[in-house]
């Protein structure tokens, strides 16, 4: 930690948050909000005089409420930067009648009650996301009595109690009587590996953390009896099994079975644990003076903020999704962004350090070359067809298109800023925008090829590259089976799917068309997916007016983590397909025959198209 503080190449912004991000790989423009700390970090020497005179006490977050701190405080003795911080909500303020004591005693005069948040702008080429994890709150698991029984604590609280820098100077005591417990029980997998309550996944580190805790207790207090209630002990890492055996040799008793109830003795405040010992096949009752709940990891509550800023995806468990679980385990799907630590999945310190090294190496690999190739999937304007209506400017999530609607000059695209979603191309009423590598002709060729023979037996599904198509890949790797009637057409974003594609598919005899994109929060192109929804809603109306059942156009949001959902949707659309009659298809083909004709040249339709544009704008 101290190395970070003094490294000449590291600019540390503590008490700061990422406010905004724009740009792309190699060229991210970031706005960082430095929150008002009310203490000058550079001037503060952490002498502690201010803390001594502060009249306010509040629960100490670092000690998980097991002790108190003042309104002006240092988070913990080894803090980096080594400086105080003032919680202004607790502070009485600088009204001399009310308080202002800290300012009076501060030799350096580095306290400023009028400090304000400050925005700073930085430019970076790569980003490593290491936002970590939160711990599971076991209060809802009522059978363990956490918060009802004072001597039931969490493994994090235990860490502070056994820590020589903690509130008890490392003396292990019970919270009710401050006596040293004679028996300690650990309950494993609290909030983990339970699909119904808590989380279905294994939190990775809790088994070994308990093994370590048992050894710590036995080192300090060899006479304390320890019982560990577990479902499996997962000691899979290097040296872990050895440590597990050592804890057994030191006298820790491991009992396979998770207690169904923890009961408190009203007088002694000791606890009884009722458990089915699944090794012995017996119902047992064990007594303990203190119970430690080995709690698991959960994604950080504020994960969605950074997720949206960097257009990241999360897997079903809520942790960030890597670009590929085996081949790109620390890369985000967004180029130039990497993950390390528990942001990606629960892991211990060794794995976090390993992953951080990997992420740094991946970032280095990009940066050391000084330049990067970006995919050529961008939009281009066909000036002859552009009427300067300006719709594309509003559609583009990246502000990459500009157009002077008054001067009536054709729109222009800044290619480097274009991320390639294709929403502009789909929304342009004049066909004046081409998406490189996902052109109208290319996609129409796929539609036609698919529906040339036996169209009535097939479902056409459009899937976005980042989420729905990947969800289909995940269904594959997990072997989730579904009917073989669907054919996918991949586009980078569902926002690329022009209404003409959908109508063309129906005109070619498709019984069902499915549009699948990412959930709104997952959109790889900021908010391009909104255009998909808007467009589909309009299309439903249009189909209805033409006497075509709107149900034949389906819209689904499927994330890259939802393989199961992908398979379920595929089954559902096949059921819908079976209900579409041959007469219906014939009727649709006739009703939509016009869409198969090529677009009329602009000159012939200029007036009509301009009216259409005006109508769109009004909508």
């Amino acid at each position, binding site marked *: 930690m101290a190395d970070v503080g003094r490294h000449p190449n590291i600019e540390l912004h503590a008490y700061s948050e990422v406010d905004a991000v724009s740009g792309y790989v190699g060229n*991210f423009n970031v706005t960082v909000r430095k929150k008002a700390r009310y203490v000058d970090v550079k001037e503060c020497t952490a002498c502690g005089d201010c803390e001594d005179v502060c009249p306010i006490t509040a629960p100490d977050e670092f000690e998980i409420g097991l002790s108190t701190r003042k309104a002006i405080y240092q988070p913990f003795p080894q803090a980096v930067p080594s400086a105080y911080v003032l919680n202004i909500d607790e502070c009485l303020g600088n009204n001399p009648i009310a308080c202002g004591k800290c300012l009076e005693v501060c030799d350096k005069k580095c306290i400023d009650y009028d400090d304000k948040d400050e925005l700073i702008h930085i430019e970076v080429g790569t980003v490593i996301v290491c936002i970590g994890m939160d711990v599971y709150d076991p209060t809802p698991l009522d059978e363990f009595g956490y918060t009802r029984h004072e001597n039931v604590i969490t493994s994090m609280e235990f860490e502070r109690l056994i820590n020589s820098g903690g509130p008890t100077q490392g003396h292990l005591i019970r919270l009710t009587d401050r006596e040293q417990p004679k028996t300690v029980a650990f309950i494993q997998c609290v909030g983990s590996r339970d699909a119904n309550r808590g989380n279905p996944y294994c939190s990775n580190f809790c088994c070994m953390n308990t093994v370590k805790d048992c050894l710590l207790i036995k080192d300090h207090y060899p006479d304390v009896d320890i019982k560990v209630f577990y479902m499996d002990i997962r000691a899979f890492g290097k040296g872990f099994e050895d440590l597990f055996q050592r804890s057994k040799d030191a006298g820790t008793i491991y009992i396979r079975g998770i207690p169904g109830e923890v009961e408190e003795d009203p007088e002694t405040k000791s606890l009884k644990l009722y458990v089915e010992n699944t090794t012995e096949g017996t119902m047992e009752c064990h007594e303990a003076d203190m119970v430690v709940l080995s709690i698991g990891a959960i994604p950080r509550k504020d994960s969605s903020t950074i997720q949206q800023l960097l257009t990241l995806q999360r897997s079903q468990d809520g942790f960030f999704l890597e670009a590929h679980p085996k081949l790109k385990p620390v890369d985000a799907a967004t180029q130039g962004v990497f993950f390390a630590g528990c942001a990606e999945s629960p892991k211990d*310190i060794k794995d976090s350090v390993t992953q951080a090294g990997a992420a740094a190496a991946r970032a280095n690999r990009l940066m050391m070359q000084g330049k990067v190739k970006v995919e050529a999937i961008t939009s281009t304007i066909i000036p002859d067809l552009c009427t300067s209506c300006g719709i594309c400017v509003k559609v583009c999530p990246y502000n990459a298109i500009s157009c002077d609607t008054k001067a009536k000059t054709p729109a222009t695209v800044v290619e480097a800023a274009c991320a390639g979603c294709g929403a502009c191309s789909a929304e342009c009423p004049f066909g004046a925008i081409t998406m*490189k590598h996902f052109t109208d002709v*290319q996609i129409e060729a*796929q539609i036609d*090829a698919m529906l040339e023979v036996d169209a009535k037996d097939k479902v056409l599904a459009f899937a976005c590259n980042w989420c729905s198509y990947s969800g289909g890949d995940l269904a594959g790797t997990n072997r989730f089976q579904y009917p073989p009637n669907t054919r996918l057409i991949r586009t980078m974003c569902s926002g690329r799917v022009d209404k003409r594609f959908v109508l063309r598919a129906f005109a070619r005899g498709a019984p069902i068309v499915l549009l699948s994109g990412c959930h709104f929060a997952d959109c790889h192109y900021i908010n391009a997916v909104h255009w998909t929804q808007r467009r589909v809603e309009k299309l439903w109306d249009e189909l209805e007016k033409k006497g075509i059942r709107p149900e034949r156009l389906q819209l689904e949001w499927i994330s890259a983590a939802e393989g199961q959902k992908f398979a379920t949707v595929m089954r559902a659309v096949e059921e819908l397909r079976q209900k579409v009659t041959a007469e219906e298809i014939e009727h649709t083909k006739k009703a939509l025959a016009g869409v198969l004709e090529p677009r009329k040249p602009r000159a012939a339709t200029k007036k009509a198209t301009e009216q259409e544009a005006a109508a769109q704008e009004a909508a």
Partner: protein
Amino acid sequence: MAEVDGGNGPLRVGVFVCQCGLNIAGTVDCDSVAKFSEGLDDVVVVYNNKYTCSEPGQLEIRKAIEENDLNRVVIASCSPRMHEPTFRAALEAAGLNPYLLEMANLREHCSWVHIGEKDAATGKAKDLVKMAVARARRLEAQEEMVVPITQKAMVVGGGIAGIQAALDLADAGYKVYLIEKEPSIGGIMAQIDKTYPTMDCSI
């Protein structure tokens, strides 16, 4: 014949059907798919191999492009999210623009999800190849833009992972901005007493 000129003369499409061991061939009749592909517009050569992504498989692509003067390549194998970069590199090595490649996903989207339905899966595979060839015939060469990289990094979060990543990059000579939400770095690690497996202190 050729409707579209890709800039390399008349269209000459090569199709590579990959069996992926038995991953694809176990469910899809690859011979039948290969035979079907021969009849598609502008397809001049069809290969049916065990592992197209293997070193010999990639060499075969390069050789096929050179020998048959191919200007469009369709690879019917796994998800493009898996091997598109691999095959694009193979095209580039043979002097063909990497954007003249199209993939048909016969594994994740076909053989693995229609196990036991050989006929239907083979029919779907043929459709997927047909769609890929139709698209490939209209593909155009693209030039990738080269953009400069700012040789600075941002690390978001100053727990053990963020600290390590920041130090590694800073030691490598890059300027690193380390952004931490709390008043101090350290994260959850700083709250832990001793750590396994070494049983030493965390800070």
